[in-house]
C-alpha cells in the first residue's frame, strides 16, 4: 500500500518536473534568433508550427551530435510525444487544451531548429579543426 502511494506520488511529481524541465529548455532557446541559413533549410521564420517538428528532427539526425545536447533533444522529443498524446485525447474534449498543445508543439519545433543551428555550427568547428590539423 505504501509502495503504491510512493509510486503514485513519484509518477505525478515526475510528470510535473518533466514538463517544467522541458519548458525551461524551450524558454531558454526561444530567445535565440535563427540564422537565415537555418530559416531557409527549415522554412521556419519567427514562429514554428508543430507540423515542422518531424522534418526538423530528420534534419537534426543528419548532423553529428554534440554530447551535451543529446539529452535535451531527447527530452523535447519525449515532450512532443506527450503533447501529441494529449492533443489526440484530452484536447478533443477541452478546446483550450488544443490551443495550448498547438502552441507548445510549435515551440518544440523552434527548439529543434535552434538545436539544428548549434549542430551545424558544431560540425563547422569540427571541420575547421580537421582542416587546421
Amino acid at each position, binding site marked *: 500500500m505504501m*509502495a*503504491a502511494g*510512493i*509510486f503514485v*506520488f*513519484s*509518477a505525478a*511529481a*515526475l*510528470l*510535473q*518536473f*518533466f*514538463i*517544467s*524541465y522541458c*519548458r*525551461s*529548455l524551450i*524558454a*531558454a532557446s526561444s530567445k535565440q534568433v535563427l540564422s537565415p541559413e537555418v530559416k531557409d533549410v527549415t522554412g521556419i521564420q519567427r514562429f514554428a508550427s508543430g507540423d515542422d517538428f518531424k522534418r526538423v528532427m530528420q534534419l537534426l539526425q543528419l548532423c553529428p551530435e554534440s*554530447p*551535451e*545536447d*543529446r*539529452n*535535451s533533444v531527447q527530452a523535447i522529443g519525449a515532450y512532443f510525444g506527450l503533447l501529441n498524446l494529449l492533443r489526440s485525447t484530452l484536447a478533443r474534449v477541452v478546446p483550450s487544451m488544443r490551443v495550448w498543445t498547438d502552441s507548445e508543439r510549435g515551440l518544440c519545433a523552434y527548439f529543434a531548429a535552434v538545436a539544428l543551428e548549434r549542430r551545424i555550427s558544431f560540425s563547422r568547428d569540427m571541420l575547421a579543426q580537421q582542416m587546421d590539423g
Partner: protein
Amino acid sequence: MPGPFEYILWFLCTPFEVVALVCAFKRKAFRRYLFLNLYVAASLVSSLARFQVFHHYGLTSSAYVYFYYYSDALLTIFLYFALMSLYSYVFDELKAERLVSLMAFALLVGTAIFSYSVVHQASDKLVSRFVVELSQNLYFVGLVLTYLLWASILKMRETRTRLIQLVLSLGVYFSLFAATYALRNLYPGMSSLLQALPPLIACFLPMAWGYAYWRLPEEARLVPARLAVVPR
C-alpha cells in the same frame, strides 16, 4: 563474464559524467556549484570502481550487487548534500544557510533512524538491508525536498535559468528513482527487469547538468511562472 549489455550500461553513463565536469570547469561553474560537481566526481569514481568489480565478478554476482548498493547509498548521501546546497542558493538572500544545514542534518539522521527501524528485525544481512532501505528512503526524501524547493522557486519568483534547470533535472532524477524503487517493491517478480533501469536513469543527471553549465550563462534569466504546469 559480463556481456555487451553490461558494458554498454557502463559506457553510457561515464562519458556523460566526464562531460558534465569538463563543462563545469570550462564555464567556471565548478566552484559555484561545488557540491553538485563533487557529487558528479564521486559518481565518476564510483562508476570506475563498479566497472572493475563487474569486469571481475559479473553483473549478477553478489560482489557487484553489494558494491553497487553500498556505493549507491554513499552517492545518495552526497546527492542529498548537493540538494541542500541548492537550497542554500535559493535562500541565500534570507541568510538561512545555518538553518538549512541543521534541518538537512536532522532529516538525514531521521531518515537513517526510520530506515533502521524498518529493517532491525531482520535476522540476517542487517547492514546490507539497512543500506538498501536508507538509499530508497533518501531517494523519496530527496524527491519531497526537491518538490518543496521547486515550490519555493515559484513562490519566491527565482529567475536564474541555470539554477532552475539544475533543480528541475534533479526533480526528474529523484522521481524516476523513487518510482522505480516503488515499482520494485510492488512487483518483486519484475526486479530483474527493473534492475537495469537505475544505471540508465543515472545517465540523465550528468547530461542535464552538463547542458545547463554549457548552454546557459550564469546571468541568463527567465520567468519561472511560465514553467509551472498549473498556470500561476
